[in-house]
């Protein structure tokens, strides 16, 4: 099976006042067409940066310092700016965490949803606007066509996130990256948005990277899970396997006090005593060792290598046998 997205040893470094900061550190994962990968981890672990690096949206301070990204057979690690713009919004689309601020306040909803269609599909103004109306209908915005001329401030947070989804799906991308799409929303609308996202990506056979804090969401929607800690993926596995038997002490910690899946979609990551390390001054060994109940001398010497087992689980831990 050839994968749609193949990320190998990806590292991202930011220039900061305190020197270079490695936000993403030798991260590898792959994704087949139509598959959903969940990325979980504490805030600051590098989930958003990983997502942004796939689209070349790191900004001035950040750069891909190593590794490779292959998308649909093409190396897009450092493509020309022009090629990147052809991919963005067209083959890879992104949905952000903050629906309240992610839409332009001075442009109508119709203009904003129609924009990718005009840009990538060459539709004329009227055609694109009609298509935008269809899209708003598909994301179940009531009275969709009449709302094309409305502005973002006329919409609630949940409705804005529906607009963002419509915009992301406009060009039927092969990959959708949803960066905590429901974190900023009311609990009551979170499930609706995720259901919508899932059913639409299924219809389009789009792959999805779903970044989330919510283990219930992971269990319900993800095929695979990658757990990030301090810029690394410390464990990844098919979702069922990971929930059945988490192996990395950090993963175990995350799930440990979570009242398992029985508690449904509201289950949050458990809190683990201690603080994640400073990314500008990482310890020489395993970054989790200072908080790990099983840390040994070995753990402090060098970061543990990633090992893949027969079931497709990848684990970066010296083990605690």
């Amino acid at each position, binding site marked *: 099976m050839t994968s749609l997205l193949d990320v190998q040893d990806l590292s991202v470094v930011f220039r900061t006042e305190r020197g270079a900061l490695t936000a993403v550190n030798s991260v590898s994962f792959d994704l087949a067409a139509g598959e959903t990968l969940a990325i979980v981890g504490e805030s600051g672990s590098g989930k958003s940066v990983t997502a942004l690096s796939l689209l070349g949206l790191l900004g001035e301070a950040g750069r891909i310092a190593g590794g490779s990204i292959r998308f649909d057979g093409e190396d897009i690690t450092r493509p020309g700016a022009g090629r*990147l713009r052809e991919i*963005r*919004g067209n083959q890879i689309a992104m949905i952000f965490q903050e629906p309240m*601020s*992610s839409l332009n*306040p*001075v*442009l109508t909803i119709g203009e904003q949803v129609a*924009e990718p269609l005009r840009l990538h599909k060459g539709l004329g103004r009227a055609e694109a606007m009609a298509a935008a109306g269809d899209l708003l209908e598909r994301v179940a915005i009531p009275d969709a066509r009449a709302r094309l001329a409305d502005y973002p*401030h006329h919409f609630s947070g949940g409705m804005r996130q529906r607009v963002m989804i419509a915009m992301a799906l406009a060009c039927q991308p092969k990959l959708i990256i949803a960066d905590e799409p429901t974190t900023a929303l009311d609990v009551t609308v979170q499930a609706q948005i995720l259901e919508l996202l899932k059913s639409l990506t299924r219809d389009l056979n789009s792959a999805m990277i779903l970044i989330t804090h919510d283990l219930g969401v992971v269990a319900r929607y993800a095929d695979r899970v990658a757990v990030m800690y301090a810029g690394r993926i410390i464990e990844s596995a098919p979702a069922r396997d990971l929930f059945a038997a988490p192996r990395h002490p950090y993963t175990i910690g995350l799930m440990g006090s979570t009242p398992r899946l029985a508690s449904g979609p509201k289950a949050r990551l458990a809190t683990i005593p201690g603080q994640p390390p400073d990314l500008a001054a990482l310890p020489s060994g395993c970054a989790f060792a200072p908080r790990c109940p099983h840390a040994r001398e070995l753990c402090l010497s060098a970061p543990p290598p990633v090992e893949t087992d027969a079931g497709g689980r990848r684990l970066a831990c010296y083990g605690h046998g």
Partner: protein
Amino acid sequence: MRDYVLRRIAVLPPTLFFASLLVFFSIRLIPGDVIDLMLAQNDVASSADRESLRAALGLDRPIWEQYFVWAGKALTGDLGSSLWQNAPVSSLLLQRLPVTLELGFLALVVSVTVGIAIGVFSAVRQDTAADYVLRSFSLLMLSIPGFWLGTLVMVFPSVWWRWSPELEFSPFFADPLGNLGHILPPAILLGLALSAVTMRMTRTMMLEVMRQDYIRTARAKGLKEGAVIFGHALRNSLIPVVTVIGLQAPLMFGGAVILEQIFALPGMGSLLLEAVFQRDYPIVSGVFLVVGLSVLVINLIVDLAYGYLDPRVRRS
């Protein structure tokens, strides 16, 4: 949007009323009496002469009555007559107004285009050499007094190249080139001085807006950087810039008064100065009224532009 426009227009009459009070009484507070000035050459004028002159000019009535007579006539477009020349104020104003309006309009065009263009460029090239140079230039234009620069512009070309602007002013439609040659130098000076604030505001706002989430969204769509800047960022940045431009309207008239003197432009500025020296109250009140009205109209346009730029203000 229609309601918004109507609300904006509804505040005009009361504002204009207060402006007229200010305009009428402030000039009469200046020490020195027009009657004294008029009779200064005339040593034999008796106090009876003074009183009859005062009565002839209508200045013997209570000041409130004078105001209401003046304001009542002003409502019909009659601004009274000059105390010195036998000419209606409105026709004097009509002669001078086009010059000042042209100067103000050209200065505004210069200030807005230069200010916004440099502001955007400086923001996009933040902290490059070009950014520093342009920002220093604009700070310089802001800090150098217009009258000094204006004097230099008058003096140096005539010393170096024996060139000096025409003293004879020709209206635009009679001699467009001669007119522009005369009016562009002060318009550019005034425009550049005003552009500094616009430029700084544009730059600051562009830097702020370019950090917003919706700019990231625009980039994630695959838009070119130019489309991100001009299609998504600029309009958001201009919302406060437009306000600043409106606030500068009075400054613009102030600058015009001075530059008209230096460049010998027969505009309202020179009319006003003469009238103030001569205590020609009707002319001074008339000029102030027209300037006040212009400032109000400019601010109305600014408010409308604001409503156009920012859909959120149309409601409240």
